[in-house]
């Protein structure tokens, strides 16, 4: 799943180095901005058949691939 999420983020942000560098802070390094975020949520919802409610999510989640993956896993179980 993590790999698929990385692919989605790369497609939206054009940040190809994410594969080698998956611990990078997506917000600090301005990889994920508000518009990419909009597309990311839509893509996650479609791909994994989940519903993401941004107000229910700790904003720090959007900093890392790992945390985003955790979130999706959690949502898929609920």
């Amino acid at each position, binding site marked *: 799943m993590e790999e698929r999420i990385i692919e989605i983020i790369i497609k939206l*942000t054009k940040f190809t180095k994410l594969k080698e560098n998956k611990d990078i802070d997506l917000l600090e390094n301005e990889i994920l901005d508000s518009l990419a975020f*909009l597309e990311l949520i839509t893509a996650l919802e479609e791909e994994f058949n989940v519903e993401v*409610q941004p107000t229910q999510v700790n904003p720090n989640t*959007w900093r890392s691939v790992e945390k985003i993956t955790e979130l999706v896993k959690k949502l898929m179980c609920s």
Partner: protein
Amino acid sequence: MILDDILKILKEKSEDKAYTINNESYSYKQLYKFVCNIYHFLLKENKEKRPIIVYGHKEMYMKATFIACSLAGMTYIPIDESIPNQRVEQIIKQVNPSLSIGKDISKEEIYKIMNKEDYSEINNIYLKPNDIYYIIFTSGSTGIPKGVKVTYKNLDSCIKWLKNIIKIDKEVIINQANFSFDLSVADLYLSLVSQSEHFIINNDTMLDFNKIFEQLKKSNANIMVATPSFIDLLLLDKSFNKELMPKLHTILFCGEKLLKSTISKLYSRFNNIKIINSYGPTECTFAVTSYGINRYIDNDEDIPVGIPKKDVKIYIIDENKNLIEDEKIGEILITGESVADGYLGNIKNNSFIQYNGAKGYLTGDLGYIKNGILYYKERKDKQIKFKGYRIELTDIEKNIQKLNYIDKVIVLANKNKDNKVINIVAFVILKENISKSELEIKYDLKKEIPEYMCPKIKIVSSFPLNKNGKCDEKKLLEEF
């Protein structure tokens, strides 16, 4: 005119809220005090009535200074703090202001000045109808921002038109845009002429939804002025609905293309909401057409941007400025009371023209008219809309080219299936023997252009060419 109305409202010194930012509210009585103090300070310090720069990020003193400048007969230039210093310098050089409030006069000083308790009243409005009310800078294709001179008559006509469409009186209006973006003109002045509360959403941390939603709830707002992108972001969360904002009855959209998906989602969350779409470049004072969007739209139909306000005319023309018949696509030409007084300085342009004996502006936008209603299609040049901001891709290219280690650069917009820009990518070729990382280039570029204009940087060794030997832009975007 609107300044008479605004001064009359201020002089009532009501305890009603005028401005709310970061959980702090100011009444109309306080606002009047601020405006009086700044007005008399400006009359004393700026006897020649030269332009005034107002620098900051949505603080109370900014709005108070705007009003004080206008009453005192001075043009103001709003600059948001997100604009990088070098670009601010370019603006200051062009404007040659008498004072920069928030800069030469620091924030502490202006707060001290505006808070004096023994102030003199305002008995004279100095601004004349043809005087320049404000100058807002937009992206210019030469790499240097260009200032649009909007007159008092332009603004007066715009605000009266908006008030007539939205029909508000003592309500709460939400602000999204910063003040160097002319989307904010609508909420800045609609709130004043209707004695409403201007509620500022501070969205420095755009992805902190809890903080934004908390502010939205607290606002108890009736009206929002927003870009479609901002509302799309809010719609991501299901709790953006009638329960969160029970009194919200109108959303005024401007700044970019409104999509069907946004409209249908809005209607499903707020069943009785009034959605107004509007259209117009900064050069024509916020907007010139508007349209109440119905909840039932056919899938193959475009979303209308609307019917022109009474004192402007819209023409669809070809390259020779001949009229094109209805339903055919051509360039949108606007004439009439909303057309601004041109650009500041001696900027060469073919956009401000005379047409049928009236002041006209060639927008560079392509569109068509059907049954008297205007529809927007796309730009005819390399200008794009990103997060509601208008950006010339060549402006970004020129600024990247200025970095002395860059050999070649091409800036492209990456669009999604709705043809909406989701990011901007700069493909650069470095000069020989230069080693720079993409992040380093971005860092250097940020000193030159605002954050929202900064593209993703991709270092490449060459550009793919198409059959004609030109850079194959499509391939470039696909490959990366």
